[in-house]
């Protein structure tokens, strides 16, 4: 897998740091099924991303972020919105 953006590299790094079971990660991996992240792990991952980018990833967005790619896209959009604000 060839990462294509800085955000992608960093978000993948953060996800990997919570991947305690060392499941192979791809852009289409789902957090709940493939990576078996429980709700506490998801909360820690979200907090790590928020701290890294100094932004807020609202809880109500999470149900729509099922895959690694979806999370990366969401972070990219939030970063962009922040710089335009």
């Amino acid at each position: 897998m060839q990462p294509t953006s800085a955000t992608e590299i960093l978000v993948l790094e953060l996800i990997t740091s919570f991947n305690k079971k060392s499941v192979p990660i791809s852009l289409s991996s789902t957090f709940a099924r493939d990576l078996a992240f429980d709700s506490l792990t998801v909360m820690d991952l979200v907090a790590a991303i928020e701290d890294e980018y100094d932004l807020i990833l609202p809880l109500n967005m999470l149900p729509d972020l099922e895959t690694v790619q979806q999370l990366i896209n969401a972070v990219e959009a939030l970063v962009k919105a922040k710089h335009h604000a």
Partner: protein
Amino acid sequence: MPDLLDKFDYASAELAKLQFLGVNPVGVVMEKILSPTRAIISGKETILLGTYNYMGMTFEPDVIEAGQKALTDFGTGTTGSRTLNGTYVGHKALEAALSDYYDTRHAMVFSTGYQANLGMCATLTGKGDYIIIDADSHASIYDGCAMGNADVVRFRHNDPVDLDKRLKRLPPEAGKLVVLEGVYSMLGDIAPLAELVRVSKANGAMVMVDEAHAMGFFGEHGRGVTEQAGCEAEVDFVVGTFSKSVGTIGGYVVSNHPKFEVLRLMCRPYMFTASLPPSVVATATAAIVKLKSVHAKRNQLWKSVKALHGGLKAAGFNLATKTPESAILAIIMPSQDIMVSLWAAMLEAGVYVNMARPPATPAGMCLIRCSVCAEHTDVQVQKVIAAFEQAGHVSGALGDMAAVA
């Protein structure tokens, strides 16, 4: 045709496994209630140590009499919403009693505390606003967030520094509501309200505190942790329930906000459900008036809490709070199996307690939880401690096995 209930098979299987082992945690039936602290379960007299009946108000003769009179005079139910035919003189008297108890201008009564949280969270914040909640918030707060249209931000449990950091990331001009609880019911720990409220206000947020597990015995007037922490003037809304210290059922919000009354026209869980029956309203009113002056009950409650916390600690149990912070004492279990065995052994020994496990609990913990009642006698508390010591060894919660697990 797909069966929509298939997705719950895992839960049925888990329950079946417990039932096979002779334990049914959701199958306890109270055959007789002898007092706020004693019941007959499976034909056996049992001490109740898991009912949230903190002030033991369920059998006060004058409260029962008030309920009976209202039942006779006003009938069995209102058959209507508060906004239509469901507001009786009793409902107005109950709201007046709440305003008096909390010394606030406004009080609004809901049919349950669950609905009060649902209604307030979903109505106060809307699209473009932010609702900021503690990670360990009660289900009714999470559900209120899910029902509303605001963006939901979660901060680390009881952590003012994390709350401050998150509030600072939000647009300064956006509407914000921080939702807190005085006592968190899973571990029985209290919130550092003075700091959390200060941080919220400094960042331009309104504040709501749920005092479900604190009303009646925290603060000089029993108004909760908000009163004890000295931040009543800064807290915009206090939510509570009649299902614990008040000893009946219902929920409420009190506030000094000048525009508060408009919520009666906006809050769907207030409008689209029937109001509380007159008998319940009368017992709630009588109990709240009484709670203002039951100093002996408060003292006995705190005395029992301290004795039980000390006794369990001395027996070797791992308690969730180092000191007795509230009327809930939680024991951290080494495993789910030991939790189930201890719970069953306690019931066998004639003591009813609660068990709790993830996702209801924080940090994946399995807990045995006790809630103390003002009507527990010193003798009952000693009996409970003795039962815990014995059941602790039988179940493996105490001793060598606990250390290994």
